Structures are given as C-alpha cells and as structure tokens.
C-alpha cells in the first residue's frame, strides 16, 4: 500500500509566481495542494503519490472574490464555506453558493477550495457542473504564461482535466448574468456524499416564457455535461410547460451501470433533479423581480 510508502517534500508558496516556479521545478512529481480535501483522500487510497506538494492555500491573491468588468473573479483558494457566505457570490453567482452547500460536511467546506475541486475533476462534484452551466472559464497559469480555458471542455473524464504538470488554476471567472435565475439539485445516498445525480440550471425569462436556459448535469457521463437538446426544446416554453417537458429525459439518456447504481436508475434521478432545478431557477427569476 502506498499509504505507508509515501514520503514527500512540501513547500508553502507565498505568491503565485513562487508557486509556479516550484511546480515547474517539480515537474511531473509535483502537485499543488490547498485544502487537501480531494488530493489527500486520493493519497490515502493509494491513487495518488506525489513526491512534492506545493501548498497554495496561503497565497493572498488566491483568496479574493472581486468583480472585474463583466465577470465575477473567484480566487482558486476560496473555500466552499466562503462561497456559501460571500455577498458578491450571492449577488452574481448564487448557483455556486447553492451548489457549495451540498459539498461534503462543514469540515470539508471549511477546507476545500473551488480551484481544487475543478482541478481534481471528480465527475460527480458540484462546482465543475455549476461552472459548466454558468459558462465560466478558468485562469490557468504556469511558469511560461497564463491563459483562460472554458469550464465545459476543461472536464475530460473521470479525474481527467485539461491541466498539465506545472499548471495551476488561479481563478474562476463567472460571467455576470443579471436577470437570470438559478437552481441546483442533487441526490446523494447520504448527506455529504458525492451525488448520484445533480443538475445545475440557469434561466432567463422573457415575460412568462423561457428566453434562455442552461442545464448541466452530473451522473450521466464521465464528466459534467450540458443537455443542449433539452435546453433548445425548453426555450420559448412557458414555465409550467417547460417543467413538464423535462419528463421523458431519462429515456433520452444512456447512463452506464455501476456496481452501486444501475444506469437506468441514475437516469431517472437525473430527470427529477433537472425538473426540480428548472422549477427552482424559474422561481428564482420571479423572486428577483420587483
């Protein structure tokens, strides 16, 4: 078992450039760590054995939440607990606050970070699917530069993300969408477990009809996916009819069986979560109206 074999070097970075230098030096063997709520369990299970940990949790610039132009910019080391209580998140990206409340336990929310969650790439995690629905992008930095990558294609499969050794997620940028309503629903076997099915939904209403809708789900595939066909079919419908139109979604999904849940059962759970999240998102828009 790797748990007793693991010995590793550890450095606490004071700035993003310092972290990037350390990660570049460490190459394939280095991993950034912040709250450790994903990486440490992976190490305990023997699924990860990094030789060098670069702790970015104390880098001041990674802990801020600001509005920059048309985006809410959330530092990668912002914790889930901070997402649930931050006023700017509540105002501009309430979906992230709703979603973060479903993550683990309070202890995990106090330690785990948004950057860690998106970089870890658990297919069932709450924040990547929410970022997909929000059409967020991630700021990725390395010793050689910085770039933005869209949340959707960033997820590439179970624990697979578009992140190379030496690269660090430094911020999550969420487009400001005034007038949208948001809903997040999930089903898990017990409180704090990863969800068997979840749905993150954003809606803009035109009068009483759906003008625009984004629906992202987990549980259907090896990564969070958008339900483009359903989004198109709901667009233009009245709210009640749109909620009803989600029925039948399960039949459209092809979900693989796993030892703990049959694919067909997951499909039915996804359908219910989507229906409820669409309903919640529409109610959220109406609540925001004067």
């Amino acid at each position: 078992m790797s748990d007793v074999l693991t010995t590793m070097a550890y450095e606490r970075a004071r700035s993003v450039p310092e972290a990037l230098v350390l990660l570049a030096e460490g190459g394939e063997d280095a991993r950034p760590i912040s709250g450790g709520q994903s990486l440490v369990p992976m190490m305990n299970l023997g699924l990860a054995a990094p030789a060098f940990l670069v702790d970015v949790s104390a880098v001041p610039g990674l802990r801020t939440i600001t509005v920059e132009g048309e985006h809410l910019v959330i530092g990668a080391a912002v914790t889930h607990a901070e997402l649930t209580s931050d006023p700017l998140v509540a105002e501009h990206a309430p979906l992230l606050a709703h979603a973060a409340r479903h993550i683990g336990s309070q202890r995990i929310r106090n330690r785990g970070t948004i950057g860690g969650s998106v970089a870890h790439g658990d297919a069932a995690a709450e924040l990547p699917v929410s970022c997909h629905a929000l059409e967020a992008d991630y700021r990725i930095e390395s010793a050689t530069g910085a770039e933005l990558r869209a949340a959707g294609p960033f997820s590439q499969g179970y624990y697979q993300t578009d992140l190379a050794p030496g690269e660090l997620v430094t911020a999550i940028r969420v487009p400001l969408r005034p007038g949208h309503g948001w809903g997040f629903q999930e089903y898990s076997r017990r409180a704090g477990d990863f969800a068997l099915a979840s749905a993150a939904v954003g809606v803009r209403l035109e009068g009483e009809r759906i003008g625009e809708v984004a629906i992202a789900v987990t549980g259907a595939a090896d990564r969070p996916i958008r339900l483009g066909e359903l989004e198109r079919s709901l667009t233009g419908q009245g709210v009640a009819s749109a909620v009803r139109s989600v029925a039948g979604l399960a039949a459209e999904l092809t979900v693989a069986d796993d030892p703990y849940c049959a694919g067909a059962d997951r499909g039915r759970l996804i359908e219910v979560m989507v229906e409820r999240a669409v309903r919640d998102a529409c109610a959220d828009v109406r609540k925001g109206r004067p």
Partner: protein
Amino acid sequence: MTETVRDQVRRPTRVVNTSVLRNDAREKLLGRTRYAGDFDVAGQLHARLVRSPVPSARIVAKDASAALAIPGVVAVLFGEDVPNNEIPTNTAGIKGRPLPPSWVLATDRVRYHGEPVALVVAANPRALAAGEAAVEVEYDLLPVVSDPERALEPDGPEVHEGGNLLSQWEIDRGDVDAAFADADVVVEGRYEAQVVDHAYLEPETGVGWLDDEGVINIRVSTQEIEHYRRIAHVVGLSDSKVRVQSPYLGGGFGGKEDMTVEPYIALAVQRTGRPVKMTWTRQESLTARAKRHPVRMSYRTAATADGQLLAHDIEVVSDAGAYPLLSGFVLLYITLNAAGPYRCDNVRVRSRAAYTNNTPGSAFRGFGGMQPVLGYEAQIDKVADATGQDRVEIRKRNAFTAGDRIPAGQRIETAVWLPQCIDAVLERIGPRPEPSSPDHRVGLGLACNVQPYGRVAWMNDSASAWVGCERNGDVVVRCGVPDVGGGQVSSLAQIAAEVLHVPMEKVTVHFGDSARTPLAGRTTATRQLYMSGNAVLAAARALRAQLVEGVGRGSGHATAALTLAEGGVITPDGVVPLAEVVMMCLANGVAINAMETYFAPTAPPVAQRVDAERIVPDFTFGAHAAYVEVDTRTGEVRPLRYVAAHDVGRAINPASVRGQIEGAVVQGIGYALSERIVYDEGVNLTGAFYQYAIPTAADCPEIEAVVLESGEGVGPFNARGIGEPPIGPCAATLASAVEDAVGARPTTLPMLAERVRSCIDEGTRS
C-alpha cells in the same frame, strides 16, 4: 432527549438505577483512553497479511524469496509454517457430518476474496509493504459460487468437499397444514436482507510480546480474551502459555468475536522472538473480516378472520460465505426468532445456511434475531390489513405473555411488556409532521421484536468475579470482561458500589486480562451484564457478609445487629469505618475478598429439529415507531423522528441504556436504508467508507429512547440485556413507515431510493 423511566418495581437503590458518570467517560471524552492500537512495545516488528485477490482458486505456487531479500523483512510464513494451521471451530453444523476445517493461512486453496495466504513480518512499515508486495503466489482460478441458492443446487460448484450445506434447523410445532386448511386468511411474503459490516471506528489491532516466563502476551482489540486457548493451539503451546489482554474497545458489534489479528501476532512473536504489532487497514476490514449474513426468507402466515395468528410456514436461506465461523448458531437464532414475539401454535421453519465464495458470515449485533424481524413484522401487518384489524391492536392481542412457549418450545419465564412498549412509543412519537413538498409523503411505522440474551444453554456459560477491599476502604473488582464501549466495566463498578455502600469513585475495576482477572467470558450475545453482573453481585454480597462477620467477631455483637451502610458497618456502639472494618476482619480471620462464579442455566444441545425446554436464558422485548418522509419522485426515505422502547427489567445505568438504544437505532437505520457490501462474482468491491454508506449525523432523525422497567429479568437487580435488542426492529419500522406513506412496502434491504421508487411504481400500477 427526554428521559422516560417507568419504574414499576423499584426497591430503593443508591448507585444502581441511576445515570452515574461512567468510569470510562472522562478519559474517553478527553481523548486519553488508550485503545489497543495506541500501545507500542520497544523494538516491535510489524506484521501484515498477504491476502487472496480472488474469491476461488487453487494455489499452485508460493515463493517468499524475493520478499525475504528486501532489507527489513524479517520473516514470511505460509500455512505450512504454522504449527497447527487448522483453527478449532465449534459452530453447529449438521449431525453426522464434520465441519470443514478453517485455516490460519490458506495452503492450497482459497475460498474468498481477502483470505489470508501469507504472513509478512518486517522491521518497519516500509519494508512490510514492500515485503507484502513481493510475496509471490500463483493462483489457478476455480469456479465461483456467490449465490447461496445456486450453491445448494446439486450441481452448484463445491466450496468445500461434501457439498455446500453448512447447517440446517427445523421447527415443527403443532399441525401447520391443518391450521392453513382451517384459516380464514393466508398472507405470503418474500424478504431479503443484505451483507453489512460492523464498521467500528477502531480497526482490528494488537501488539504481542514474549515475557520472561515464556508466555506470549497479546494486548488486542477483542470481544473475547478467552481466545487464548485457540491461539495457544495454533502456535502449539499449552493454554497457560498465552495471555490476552483487552483494553477498552473502540467498538466490536460481533466483528471481534471471532479471532482477528491474534493468531498472526502470536505466530510472528513465536517465529521472531520479538514484539510484533499488527493493525488491519479499513480496506482489509471491509474486504475480508466476517460480516452479517444476508438472508432470503419466505413467509406464509395463516390467521382467523379476527386477526389471531394460527400458523407460520417459513423458509430461510442464509449465505454463510466461505467458512463456518458462527454461521450455524446465527442460523439457529434466525430459526428460533423467525415467528417473532407473537403466540403461534403451529409453526414450521426450514432454515439452511450455504457455503459460498463470499466473505464469511458470523456474529453481528442481533445475531440472527435481527434478520427475521423484517419478515414477521411485515406478515403481521399483512394479516391486520387482510382482516381489517388495527395494526397496533393485532400486535397487542397476539403478543406473548409470561408463561407462553416460543415455537422452539422454551417457556418464557419473565414479563413480556410488548403492549407497554407499543403504548410508550406511540405516546411519544407525537403528531405527524407535514410533508416538505407536494412530492413528499409522510408515514408512521411501528415494529416490535424479541431478542434472547445470554448464550445458548449447552455452552454451559459461566462468569467469575473477584471483589475485595483495600485497607483504606477502597473496593477492587477483578473480572475478565472485555469492555466494547457499552459500559460493561462501569456497570460492574456500579453493582459493587451499590452492594458495598461505597461511592462509585471508590471502586476500581481490573478487567479484560486472561492471566490476572477471573475469566468472565466473551462480551457477546448480550451476556456480559447478565453474566458478569450476576457474578459481581454474588461476590459483593459475599464480601458484604464477610465484612459484617468480621465486625461481629471483633466487637462481640451478633451479626444480625450489624448492617453495612454508607460509611461503614453500623453497630449498636456506632459506625465502624470501612478501613477499620477491614482491619477487624484481618484480625479475626475473615477474608476481605470473595470470588464467585455465576452459572447460566444449562441444557443439552438441541437437535436439528429444535424443540426444547431450555435454549437461551431469557428474552428482551421492544417496540419502535418512526415517522419517515418519502420523496415519491426519487424514492428517497428520510427518517424524521424515531422512538424506541425496550423493557430492560431494571436499568443499571439508564443513560448507558439510552446510549445502547440510540446507537443501535443508528446502526439499524444504516441497515435499513443505505449500508451494504457489494460483490461482483465473489469479489468484494466495497473497500472504503466512501463506498459503505453509514448514516451520518445529518442523516439521522431525532431519536428518543424509552427505558421501561418491568422489574423482571434474570440479570443483576432484575436487569435484562440491552446491547443487541434495539437494533432489531429498525428496518421493519422504517419499511412499515414507508408503506404508510406511499402504500407500498419495500421487502429488500437496504431500501435504496431506486428500490423504493420501483416499489411505489408497482404499487401505483397494481
């Protein structure tokens, strides 16, 4: 939580029957209790098992040379290196057929995933892990049988030579066929329960060393220190050359009733002459340590038009896994308890336990009294519905009363407070909560149970205890109980304090040491308070008489004129303080200590057809009620409020009793709703707690424990056992609540959301 103690027969007590601070509470709360894994011995080596990665195979080659070449690896043992590799097994099998052997280390054949094949001993954890990985074992795969009914078919792949039937029991009471022919209503049902794990926080762990007398000492987390005999057999030593100590346990629940790390530690100590520590990982524990038996149960029940039970016809198939362990006894308990706490004059039970290539089944809190509750409580609800009777009244009406015989023949000698338990939970459950959305429904469930306490009569069970006074008046109890966390030791202190009229803090209990405390048997079968409590009670009473005798001799007063009370012995001349009493005893040739042995009632073993006057010492009865909310769209079941009442005869420590009930309810909710071990053709896929869904605090409802005291029970101060009984009714209670909410009753555990939703869909269609 509300305390509800209805005390009908209360002789005044000072310490017993009060919620005194347990003598283990403070250290545990402060995190200072040292559990077995917290002890290290200077110079210790580390040991680890190489386990089979496959559920069924022939071992064709084994090679330790690469492992032994690793620096730090001290020894590698295979089965051939074990002095007596066959573990003595005494479970109940089938008459005339010897039980197949169980092995310390498999030699030429493995029968389940995780079966131990080699023992690696190394100087440090790093060398140990490398050594384990370097032991080469070549397997030739054999057919796997993972379904017990398939295993029992004539062409089922043989797990052991001679067929896969491990054990079978029968009850034939009355004339079942005639009763069915005469019945007004007949109801049927099939029920299925899954494999679950004990999931205690403290893993299997211990450390062993050789002392100056050549005795192998093992300090280990175990429910049974008397395994020292089995351990001695394995290493080829005389019984007296192995000593086992159990410090406070971080949970047992039956999972530490069979040996776990003990024989391996002893072998490693014997081989190396050095201290050796072994701790199983959670993955090892979940993968390979014995589990609760999954069962399939078919019930047919006959009743009169007004709801009187006439007959049961019950068939049970239990999956024993790969080795016998305690499966025969668990199956006996399933058989004994199959008809529940209700009078029924015509009962047929046919139960069978089959070998498969799954993890062995063995003891788990409830021990066969648990599984059938799912069946008999569903059946009595069906009878109520079919006859138009009230589900509460039908239970009260059919409940046993003292003097009735259970279907297996034994007469119930103590009070049966089932109606009182039912009334208590229904009174306390409160008004029905409102559903949280139009998609949700709320339902109320009720279930009752019976669970024996104490071991089966032909185990000839006994427990010894020594109670003495120090010269300063301190009281010392020596009793070989393992304390699994239920307050076993503290209750003994309470009993001694009560009888000897000293405060709790004046009593010290030495416990759990096979060499230095009188043997008191295992902490299993809800027997420890009953057995050791009675032994301490007898010893304390004997000592009390001696102390009075000593003062009588010293003072010249007749002993009838003397009383032991708080502060000392009261004489016509005044009070003699306990310290002086001790000196008076010694000066007058009266011992200041006493040892007593309590013997449970004994009887010869039952035959395969179970019909006997005496099988178990006594029974504990209870009733549970719960509100659940069901999400009709997902099928999710959420318990909202839970009330559990048990008649404990008399509570030695009411707070401890409530703790046992609350903990059992949480464990029972896990059994009902979420916990399960998942196999793929014998390969155990559930190797971590993220896959094994124990309810968290957030998943648990408010739980109220109601402690009823009939004043009748065969334990000390008329106490009944309460360790196991409260886990029994949980699954049936929640199934009944789901049925009340949505009109369809789940019959397969755990009641996963998708199963409940299917159940709702079927109910809607029909």
